[in-house]
């Protein structure tokens, strides 16, 4: 008989505890981000597809050493460059990334000795066309500059 009543009262008490928790949550601020209207800043460690790093003049640091192209296990990267008149180093003319095959392993970033490529924070990559994933990184860099 005592057990019967203690069960009722302990049950009631647990209900009140539960209600008090949701009551507190009701008055605490919302934490969701309203995605299309608000976006979160990506953390520094986020691995998006690679992008070229701009130097002070806004051009690329790349000297077309081809290390990244060689390091890529999937053959996503194709780099080309030429030696301009009166310049010591080669300058970059095309840097194409085929993101359809990229597995974001990061070998290219690791292999680069000239601080020329980094991970971007791009995560909105949905598309219906395959061509959208073959990315011209040099064009991207110029667009970013302007």
């Amino acid at each position, binding site marked *: 008989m005592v057990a019967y009543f203690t069960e009722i009262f302990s049950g009631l008490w647990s209900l009140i505890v539960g*209600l008090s*928790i949701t009551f507190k949550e009701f008055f605490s601020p919302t934490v969701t981000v309203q995605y299309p209207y608000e976006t979160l800043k990506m953390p520094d460690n986020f691995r998006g597809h690679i992008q070229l790093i701009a130097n002070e003049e806004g051009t690329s640091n790349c000297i077309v050493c081809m290390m990244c192209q060689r390091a890529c296990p999937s053959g996503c990267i194709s780099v080309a460059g030429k030696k301009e008149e009166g310049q010591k180093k080669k300058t970059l003319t095309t840097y194409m990334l085929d993101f359809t095959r990229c597995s974001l392993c990061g070998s290219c970033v690791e292999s680069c000795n000239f601080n020329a490529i980094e991970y971007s924070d791009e995560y909105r990559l949905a598309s219906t066309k395959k061509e959208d994933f073959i990315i011209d990184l040099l064009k991207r860099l110029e667009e970013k500059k302007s």
Partner: protein
Amino acid sequence: MELSLLNILIGVIAAIAFAAVNAAYLVWAERRGAARIQRRPGPNINGPFGLLQPPLDGIKLMCKQLIIPGGADKALFIAAPVLAMAPAIVSFVTIPFSEKIVAHNLNVGVLAIFAFASMGGISLLFAGWSSRNKYAVMSSVRAVSQAIAYEIPMLITVITVVMITNSMDLMKIVQQQAGGLLHWNIIPLAGDAPNILMPFSFLIFFICSLAETNRAPFDLGEAESELVAGFHTEYGSMGFGLFFMGEYANIVIGACLTTILFLGGWYAPIPFLDFIPGVIWFLLKIYLLIATFIWIRWTFPRTTIYGLLNLSWKILIPLSMFNLLLTAGLLKVF
């Protein structure tokens, strides 16, 4: 008041409008409340604070086709959603919102409302059985056992109140509670029968009205995780819409009844606050109760069917019986 055709028409239209507006905007309140408890904003795109969401949902539901599954019992299938909504609307006719605002006062108001409320269970049974769907049948079996289990303690509690008042007239039940908080049936220390167990009666009635409206934590009839959507699995379009609105209209009825039977209807808690119109007190009380309904729904997980039946047969019925006897004894003594 003369019962002319115009009066009836106005009363019915007002009742339907009140029920429909409440049903629509309680859905909004529920979604906003649930969102706040889960720390998200809830519907906020359509109109300010998402206030246009309910009419848009209604338009969407009305534009959809009502599909009747092959092999379903057509007549019952169509009748069920109407049966879910109609009793709720009819019940509004006899509920007194204040001393003057009542569509038609019956001297057996309590009885009438409970007679209509019991049709809600029938509509669930019809919906589940006529759908020709195993989940729906399971759901209606549960709904019926739940309705039987919870109508008993609810009615015993109502008998307790009716015994104190000596009337089944909702007006008289409220008028008997005039004179402030201590005269209300929830703590009737200054009333005719100073029964200190009345708060428990109130709790029992409240729990039963939660169960009668098939809401969480007693939404065994719907039980999304087990029975798809329960009795309304096969319903689309406004058929589903009517079930949905019926649920909310029933919540309002439950809150109105709780207010009338236990919380002093349209009277202010302290007599000198009586200058505020009664209808405001009444609406304040019912919306406070409805907020509690919503709060409870988003706090507790669903009980099991055994837990549900045990709660009723082992706890609520004996306690309400005991309180009935105690009240009878106190009425005899005082």
